């Protein structure tokens, strides 16, 4: 029997009941990675020996009857911006090509404590800046449904690895849609939790007030299980909220009562590819058939979200990335005239075009004379966007709509036109600005067989509701059980 596309609940119970060992499953994943990664480029590095050792530890615990953590020996992989002690974390950048973090991220510690098996590290846009995984110094990840198409981004490697059955679970990070959009492009589940539910300690920063780590899986169970393992308070992240993550039992119990679904006209307006709109409307009708009520809500400031986002994210990035100075860690130029020139040459050589562009934009927006007009203005619009959500969620439990206006686009199509690339994130970005959780769930295919994603948004800390709604949808549909043909 092939293990690659078993759903996470089946894999988990096979492990828990001893019908399958973590070593068997981990070996199957490693073989699949070896076979498929050369053509899909999902992984930047694979740590087979370390993974098998950890798998054996979990199997041994289980054999001895000791408590096994919630991940139960499931293999998974991490986006290359999440620190694992002494394992290279490149962030998709030449700048960090040789960087080995001296400590573990909070989520890495949690995964080890809950008996997950980390098999390797996943490709990403450089410093998580991009929507196609094309800005990685390791080259783009390819979409397993059509290798002429992008995987989405910035967590493209994670989406590809899960969609192609290399691993059942993965962790990515989402600053403006970087989990949900690649999940949509590759036909898997990807979730951005509430800001502050998962500690950012050991996540290499892009835009600190927006960055959030979250799970990829092929189903709601897997995403919920991984969120339970990694969520909860951590005093090393001062923005960590003192609550626990929802438990998998709570999620699998399903939606309590009748689900009130909100839809927003702006999500179905200009720019949305008609086939994507059709799939999403069909999906919402499916929820209605399952007993949900559907009503319209308004998010009048949603059209301002991209402009506000790029000012805020780039301003934070210009500040965060000032740490790459060629002195403490990262690339250092060989040729320079003085100290300042050492900084300039090292950064000029090792950052790619998208990172430089965002640092430039952020530096400009924060510079004297422009701060009020750009950065401060964007922060005020951000509050208006948040207030829109607060109002909308007075009458509905979740908001449903498309994840992205198009399916996966061709490689190279938008790389030279930054603004067009930025507009890919139009439906996902507001959740990061508002701090609320969002999830992408597979909901159909276009006529040329590219996956389409359905996005649910929920109020702050209603992460369980999102996963319950995703589970409800997956109980009634089979989209998540379709897999790309790979050889």
């Amino acid at each position, binding site marked *: 029997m092939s293990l690659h596309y078993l759903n996470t609940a089946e894999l988990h119970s096979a492990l828990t009941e001893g019908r399958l060992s973590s070593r068997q499953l981990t070996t199957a994943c490693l073989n699949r990675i070896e076979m498929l990664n050369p053509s899909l480029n999902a992984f930047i590095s694979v740590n087979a020996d370390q993974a098998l050792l950890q798998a054996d530890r979990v199997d041994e615990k289980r054999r001895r009857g000791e408590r096994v953590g919630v991940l139960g020996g499931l293999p998974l992989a991490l986006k290359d911006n999440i620190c694992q002690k002494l394992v290279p974390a490149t962030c998709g950048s030449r700048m960090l090509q040789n960087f080995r973090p001296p400590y573990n991220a909070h989520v890495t510690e949690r995964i080890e404590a809950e008996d997950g098996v980390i098999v390797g590290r996943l490709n990403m846009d450089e410093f998580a800046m991009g929507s196609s995984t094309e800005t990685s110094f390791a080259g783009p990840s390819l979409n397993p449904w059509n290798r002429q198409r992008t995987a989405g981004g910035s967590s493209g490697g994670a989406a590809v690895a899960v969609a192609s059955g290399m691993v059942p679970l993965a962790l990515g990070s989402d600053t403006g849609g970087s989990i949900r959009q690649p999940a949509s492009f590759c036909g898997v589940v990807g979730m951005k939790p509430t800001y502050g539910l998962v500690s950012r300690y050991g996540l290499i920063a892009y835009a600190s007030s927006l960055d959030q780590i979250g799970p990829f899986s092929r189903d709601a169970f897997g995403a919920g299980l991984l969120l339970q393992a990694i969520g909860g308070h951590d005093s090393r992240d001062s923005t960590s909220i003192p609550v626990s993550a929802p438990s998998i039992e709570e999620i699998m119990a399903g939606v309590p009562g009748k689900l009130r679904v909100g839809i927003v006209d702006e999500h179905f307006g200009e720019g949305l590819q008609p086939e994507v709109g059709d799939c999403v409307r069909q999906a919402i009708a499916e929820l209605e058939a399952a007993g949900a009520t559907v009503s319209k809500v308004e998010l009048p400031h949603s059209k301002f979200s991209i402009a506000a986002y*790029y000012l805020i994210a780039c301003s934070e990035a210009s500040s965060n990335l000032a740490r790459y100075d060629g002195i403490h860690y990262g690339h250092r130029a060989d040729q320079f005239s003085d100290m300042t020139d050492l900084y300039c040459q090292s950064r000029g050589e090792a950052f790619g075009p998208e990172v430089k562009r965002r640092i430039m934009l952020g530096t400009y927006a924060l510079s004297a004379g422009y701060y009020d007009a750009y950065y401060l203005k964007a922060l*005020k619009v951000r509050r208006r966007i948040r207030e829109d959500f607060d109002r909308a969620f007075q009458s509905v439990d979740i908001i449903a709509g498309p994840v992205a206006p198009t399916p996966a686009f061709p490689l190279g199509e938008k790389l030279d036109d930054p603004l067009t690339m930025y507009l890919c994130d139009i439906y996902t970005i507001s959740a990061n600005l508002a701090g609320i959780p969002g999830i992408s769930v597979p909901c159909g295919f276009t006529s040329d067989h590219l996956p389409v994603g359905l996005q649910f948004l929920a109020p702050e800390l209603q992460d369980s509701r999102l996963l319950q709604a995703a589970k409800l949808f997956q109980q009634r549909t089979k989209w998540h059980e379709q897999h790309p043909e790979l050889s």
Partner: protein
Amino acid sequence: MEISDVRKVASLARLALTEEELLTYGRQLTGILDYVRLLDEVDTQNTEPMPHAIALQNVFRDDQRTNSLDVADALSNAPRTDGQYFLVPQILEERSGGK
């Protein structure tokens, strides 16, 4: 954006850019700045800025001593060290003959 502005921003950002990069970023940043002018449509006169996604205040932890990174670990990724410190190029000029 004028090329002189682009040059100034690159200098503030500590980025050595080629002439070609300066021209490209100048053109692209002008396009992006035109686009974000969209925000002027929003009346924000009575709106407080929202610097963070959640309203956490006064985050304290217990004042307990914990281990920090030891020197060898902290230096382990540095391009140049002497085993105890980060090594940087000389930043003060030597003065000959005087104090």
